[in-house]
């Protein structure tokens, strides 16, 4: 049994390599769209999540614990629920239907942004709170405003926050539940790696599905390696 599994993984690996080196334009399109959608969603999630994380990190207000619990709970948002909620809003019969966004990459970006913003907010809150513990007295002595404090914390935690962004990106690029509902897995329009894998699985073409999975894994490895390289460079300068 194990031998069979290893053999099928080996075959998929060969297929993955062949696919990549064939330069198949359909494959490149899917890979590129995956990266584009998930990276854009990650950028938006950082724009939304980092200020929230920073505010909660330095804030001392009533109900802060409740906010923390909520943020941490939202990290576990099921993608399919996010997809459904976004679908109901973007559907032509929904409140935002007039925008005509359903079954477009924009809809997928919206869904993934909602999915990973809590992850960015919750993880950055932890990072920034730790850093603030170190800086707080110095910053108070300098009489920094709240905005100046947040800006300084975000900048000084930039390399740690890169890892936070990476966690969000990893979740976005790997999820299928949300994008398949709001994107529709339309060939040449909204098909991304994960929905393509789901499709090939449902066609029973498990080898191709596994090969696509391996390519997705390699892409994720590449992104992680790039970020890790940046972090190590920063660590040598004691900037982490």
């Amino acid at each position, binding site marked *: 049994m194990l031998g069979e599994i290893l053999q099928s993984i080996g075959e998929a690996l060969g297929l993955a390599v062949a696919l990549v080196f064939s330069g198949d*334009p*359909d494959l490149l*399109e899917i890979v590129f*769209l995956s990266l*584009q*959608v998930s990276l*854009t969603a990650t950028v938006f999630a950082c724009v939304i999540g980092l200020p929230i994380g920073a505010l909660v990190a330095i804030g001392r207000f009533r109900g802060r614990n409740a906010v923390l619990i909520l943020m941490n709970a939202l990290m576990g948002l099921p993608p399919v629920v996010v997809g459904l909620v976004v679908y109901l809003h973007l*559907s*032509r*019969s*929904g409140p935002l*239907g*007039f*925008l*005509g*966004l*359903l*079954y*477009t*990459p*924009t809809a997928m*970006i919206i869904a993934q942004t909602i999915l990973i913003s809590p992850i960015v907010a919750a993880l950055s809150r932890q990072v920034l709170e730790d850093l603030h513990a170190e800086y707080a007295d110095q910053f108070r002595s300098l009489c920094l405003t709240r905005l100046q404090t947040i800006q300084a914390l975000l900048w000084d935690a930039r390399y740690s926050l890169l890892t936070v962004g990476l966690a969000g990106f990893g979740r976005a690029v790997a999820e299928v539940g949300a994008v398949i509902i709001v994107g*529709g*897995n*339309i*060939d*040449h*329009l909204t098909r991304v790696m994960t929905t393509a894998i789901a*499709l090939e*699985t*449902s*066609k*029973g*073409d*498990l*080898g*191709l599905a596994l090969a696509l999975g391996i390519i997705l894994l390699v892409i994720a490895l590449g992104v992680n390696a790039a970020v890790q390289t940046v972090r190590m460079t920063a660590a040598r300068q004691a900037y982490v």
Partner: protein
Amino acid sequence: MLSKPYAVTAVSIFLAGAATAQDMSIIVQSTTSTANSGLYDYLLPIFQETSGIQVNVVAVGTGQAIKNAQNCDGDVLLVHAKASEEKFVSEGYGTVRTDLMYNDFVIVGPISDPAVVSGMTDVQGALGKIAEAGALFASRGDDSGTHKKELSLWSSAGVDPTASSGQWYRETGSGMGATLNAGIGMGAYVMTDRATWISFGNKQDYQISVQGDDDMFNQYGVIPVNPEKCPSVHADAAQIFSDWLVSSAGQDAIASYKVADQQLFFPNAPTK
């Protein structure tokens, strides 16, 4: 052919300008069997070349396809559940339903054939034997056209399989491909449309056990979504696509699509 929608995609990401993409394109809410069998990959380039209209296919179960179309999230509905389709039209969601093509359902099972139904044509008899033997049977369980058809066959066989749900009757709640994967994984009989089965890539030791009963006939219909219910639909382009499918050019194209030298769909639109 690929570069154009691709470029539009890139722009629409940042401008939310999806409307421009849809001026030239329509969305077909489709059953999975037509999509998974590769029919669209064959048909749509032919249609796009003659019409210049980009057709985007959202492949989901028939039940969900109808619901999505009722939410105005499609311009054309292409499914296989005649009663539901007629209801869709009579409630005003669709303009007119036209028979498009047919194939048939088959029951596939393992070579070991635990219920001894292999070679039977009488589908009710076969279902009765499966139930009697308590042999595993994997059902879509997702309100799709195939699922509805399967339930009606059980009903005419005088068996209520849902009473044994979770025992020998396993409802996957998934698409055809996922249900086939699950059924084959657990050694269960599965009812599937022939087109999906022929093009399915993970057959393992499975074969067609039951086929050829007139009751296993599987009719596909095409319905443009009604612009009176859904003003946002691209009614003209939808009508052009629907007309082309039932025209002699479209029907010939359907008939000429083959996988492994087997014709998957048999056009039967009424000639005008």
